[in-house]
């Protein structure tokens, strides 16, 4: 657990350091649907750690290493509402036509809040309600994304994307609970 927390803090500090270097970070906002239908939202800020550009028939091809810091949540109606904070790092390739694909891995913290009154019964039979019942979990993730650059340079929206995400909830009943989600959203910059 210590290793996980340490690596998480290193990632965050790397991210913060990177942000200092660039005045104009890219933000992203997306629908985060666990099993597609359990609705949620994800907000993030990303930074380019590495860029290599090349040209093919006058068109630009980009190879980037990206890091992101995200916060989000989703809900299972009548079961739980989950909030997470995670950091991701990955590779993004932008083709000459503007088509983007990327792959990211991440680690994070997932907090579940039970949607419903939760009671506990003591051995002498007294009952009490638990405030904000839920559990804490480690949340590693992996995603494959597809999208496209928005061509208009004056537009604050820079790209759109859709990506299936696999993330794990650890521990879950002494085991690991896998989750599948669909994330679809836009990347934008506040300074055009």
């Amino acid at each position, binding site marked *: 657990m210590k290793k996980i927390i340490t690596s998480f803090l290193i990632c965050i500090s790397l991210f913060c350091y990177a942000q200092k270097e660039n005045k104009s970070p890219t933000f992203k906002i997306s629908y985060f649907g666990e*099993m597609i239908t359990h609705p949620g939202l994800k907000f993030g800020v990303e930074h380019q750690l590495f860029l290599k550009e090349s040209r093919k028939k006058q068109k630009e091809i980009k190879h980037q290493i990206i890091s992101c810091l995200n916060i989000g949540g989703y809900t299972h109606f009548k079961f739980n509402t989950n909030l997470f904070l995670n950091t991701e790092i990955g590779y993004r390739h932008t083709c000459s036509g503007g088509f983007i694909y990327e792959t990211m891995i991440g680690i994070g913290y997932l907090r579940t809040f039970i949607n419903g009154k939760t009671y506990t019964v003591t051995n002498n039979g007294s009952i009490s309600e638990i405030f904000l019942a839920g559990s804490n979990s480690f949340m590693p993730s992996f995603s494959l994304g597809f999208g496209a650059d928005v061509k208009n340079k004056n537009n604050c929206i820079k790209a759109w994307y859709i990506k299936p995400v696999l993330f794990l909830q650890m521990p879950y009943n002494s085991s690991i609970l896998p989750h599948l989600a669909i994330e679809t959203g836009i990347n934008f910059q506040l300074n055009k």
Partner: protein
Amino acid sequence: MKNLFIPILLLTMILISCEKESTNIYISDHLFLRSNKADMPIFVEGNYASKNFVIVLHGGPGDDILVFKELFQPFTEKLEENYVMVYWQQRCAGSSQGNVDSENIQLSNYVTDMEKLIILLKHQYGKDINIYLLGHSWGGAIGSMFLLKDNNQMNIKGWIEICGNHDFPLTFQLEKEKIISTGKNQIAFGNNTESWNNIIEKANNCDLNTIEGKLAIYVLTDEAYNLMVSVDSVIINDFTTKETLDGIFFHPYNPFSNIVNVFAGAAVNKDYMDLSLNNDLHKIKIPSLFLYSEYDFTVPSKLGHEAFEQISTNKKEFIILYHSEHWPMRTEPDKCSNAIIAFIEKYK
């Protein structure tokens, strides 16, 4: 308008006085019970007027109570019209949450959870409610364990077992016997001769003193049932494509939780494979109803009949579902629900 006021007032008063007192008070609550590291959902749904509560003990260990609640709807809806159904998701099963470790998934934990559940229900809905237990398959084991502990029977008005299993060593033995006897009958009728010969040979080779032998006979129960579906009187119990897709994409919770919990709950397997309550069932003295299926190879009806003979009460009934296998709530919903309603009405 003035002239109309008095007749309208009178008519309204007559209508109000004629209105029959409603006998339906439908409640639909969901709450959670936290017990020994498990956060267990409880859905409380149905007609509160009679104050009869039926706690559903699902099968498994590890089954999803939502399957029971949603996919057996013709069965559950009819019961909800009359009583309050309490759909309790057991620890380390289905959509149950928390972080239960191997120390907290002993057989005794299930009984403790049930005791707490009953305290909670009486706290929420009144001390004067009548509580019935309805155990399916594995639910039969934990229900029986609960009833055999201390004075727990004093809190329960009636015990209903649907294909309940309360003696696993005996069940494995009966599974083997049923597979072989059914196979011999089918061969005599000339049905699937080659397949039955093959299954009988495999069953004869199963050593029930070993885990491998027990698992092998369990697998054969499914093969035997699949051969019997060609017999006209067996109602096929398969999920439709729509039900399967709904279960994945519109499952109210994460559909993987069921799979993960089944494996996490497997820690209890080493205990329940040796669980044998048949010799203690005479201590059960409350009204009891046993519903077992003719084509159930998983928990053969002979086991239910053993329990019926063992318990120490005259207020008992044994019903065979002649067209079903292990899930008669789905295949013969009306017959099951009618039998339960008749039982509760008789002994309430």
